[in-house]
């Protein structure tokens, strides 16, 4: 484990301290999520995924053609780093979370039983339209959502590092105002509005942030103001649920100008679950993750 000071870990600690005071309703989630995010942050300093080779011309051409730089299954991965993260997570799985424990067991067993296929097993979780991991994993009785959650969390450090490296080499052009991530084409898990009015997306897959139009549905690109709106709870005016009346999808938005500290978005994804309920009760749907514009319509 790294002994170096990691500012990301400080941010995580601060975000959880605030959340514990501010949102006690989610108390049950905090111990596991905090450990998970800290492990992910540590994993990120340790992971060394290969560089994704791309020329400047190719990057520009992709963006000009409205394509992201790469597809989810093209991400280089440091599978060893993912595996050590999987091992470390074992000790902090919540006692009563049978699904997560089952998923952990199944994945660990598959990796142990097929050592020569480890890379293929890990890479299989980059897919979203098929379930290739079933070739190696015993999935009987295993909850798919838990399995994906676990595997993709272990891969997240690699994915973020690849995205960050690409963005360092190729800064996102200002004109990229698509509703999907310029790096991987996923839809945002959250939106955030800065004090100066700049609206941004936060990628659900690789953690990239990018600029959006102020009025725009990230799912169907509708920009007609009369069919776009938002809901909010009076006690939490720093969150909006932005919906589109054409496609009926919604996105959660954090107004960061109201917050004392920059929000830690991976945690906000969880501590805004009550807003999902609110949105869904109002008849709106949760967006699927990879954008259909890039990946085609994925099964629900």
């Amino acid at each position, binding site marked *: 484990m790294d002994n170096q000071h990691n500012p990301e870990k400080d941010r995580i600690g601060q975000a959880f301290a605030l959340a514990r*005071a501010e949102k006690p309703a989610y108390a049950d989630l905090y111990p596991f999520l905090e450990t998970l995010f800290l492990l992910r942050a540590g994993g990120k300093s340790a992971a060394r995924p290969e560089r994704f080779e791309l020329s400047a011309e190719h990057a520009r051409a992709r963006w000009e053609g409205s394509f992201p730089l790469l597809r989810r299954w093209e991400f280089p991965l440091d599978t060893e780093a993912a595996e050590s993260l999987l091992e470390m997570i074992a000790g902090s799985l919540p006692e009563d979370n049978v699904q997560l424990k089952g998923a952990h067991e199944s994945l660990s067993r598959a990796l142990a039983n097929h050592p020569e296929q480890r890379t293929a097993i890990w890479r299989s979780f980059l897919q979203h339209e098929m379930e290739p991991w079933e070739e190696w994993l015993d999935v009987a009785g295993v909850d798919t959502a838990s399995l994906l959650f676990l595997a993709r969390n272990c891969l997240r450090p690699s994915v973020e590092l690849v995205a960050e490296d690409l963005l360092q080499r190729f800064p996102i052009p200002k004109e990229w105002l698509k509703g999907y991530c310029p790096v991987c084409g996923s839809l945002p898990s959250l939106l955030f509005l800065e*004090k100066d009015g700049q609206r941004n997306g936060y990628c659900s897959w690789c953690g990239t942030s990018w600029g959006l139009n102020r009025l725009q549905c990230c799912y169907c690109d509708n920009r007609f103001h009369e069919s776009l709106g938002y809901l909010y709870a009076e006690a939490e005016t*720093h969150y909006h649920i932005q919906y589109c009346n054409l496609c009926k999808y919604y996105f959660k938005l954090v107004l960061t*100008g109201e*917050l*004392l*500290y920059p929000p830690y978005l991976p945690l906000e994804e969880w501590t805004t679950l009550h807003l999902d309920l609110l949105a869904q009760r109002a008849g709106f749907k949760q967006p699927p993750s990879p954008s259909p514009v890039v990946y085609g319509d994925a099964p629900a």
Partner: protein
Amino acid sequence: MAGKSFFIDTTRCTACRGCQIACKNWNRNEGSLTKNTGSHQNPPDFDANTFKLVRFSEVENEGKVAWYFFADQCRHCLVPPCKDVIEGTVPDSVIQDEATGAVVYTEKTAEAPLDDVRESCPYDVPRKKDKGPFVKCTMCIDRVSNGLVPACVKICPTGAMNFGDRDEILAMAKDRVEKLKPRYPKAQLLDANEVRVIFLVVDDPRKYHKKAVASLSPGIQRPAGKSTLAGPARRVLKTVLGV
């Protein structure tokens, strides 16, 4: 603990009064009965329903009229003289929040003597509700302890109102003074070492408001050029003991 601070950059203020309204809104304070006094400043002064007040001053600068705006409020002194005076009569009635440094009056302050309390504050901030407690800005302690910025800061559209950890705010304020100095040689921070609400002005503070700095309050002086943390304590001695 360093706690929190505000930085109020008057050069960015457009006097929209958003902060004044946001403050009323958050604190559920009613409107104040007021009348036209020939100034855009409205109401004319702090009152029991107005904890934040944008002061307007018309000044003459080299033959030209200039408007100075001063979004006034309690400074949340590091060593608050009002606390000492109030608690001289009613012990434990003023809270100085440990995490933020906010000076917050409780209902118990109702019993404290009006004149003494008003006089104790070098910025003439505290007001009293009819037969009720003393009132003033609370640093939106209920918002801040939930990770939100104060209502006035949230609303300010120009970046005049800023809030955060004291170290960062002090650095931001000093940096801004340095940037402004070449164009405004009189750019200065007001009582920065003694208060948590740090104003930046670019002219003689008197031109903004007669109580913009502590040293402008009659009978309350700090040794010239020697602004120290002991300042507010000295003010208390002066106010309470007349020394």
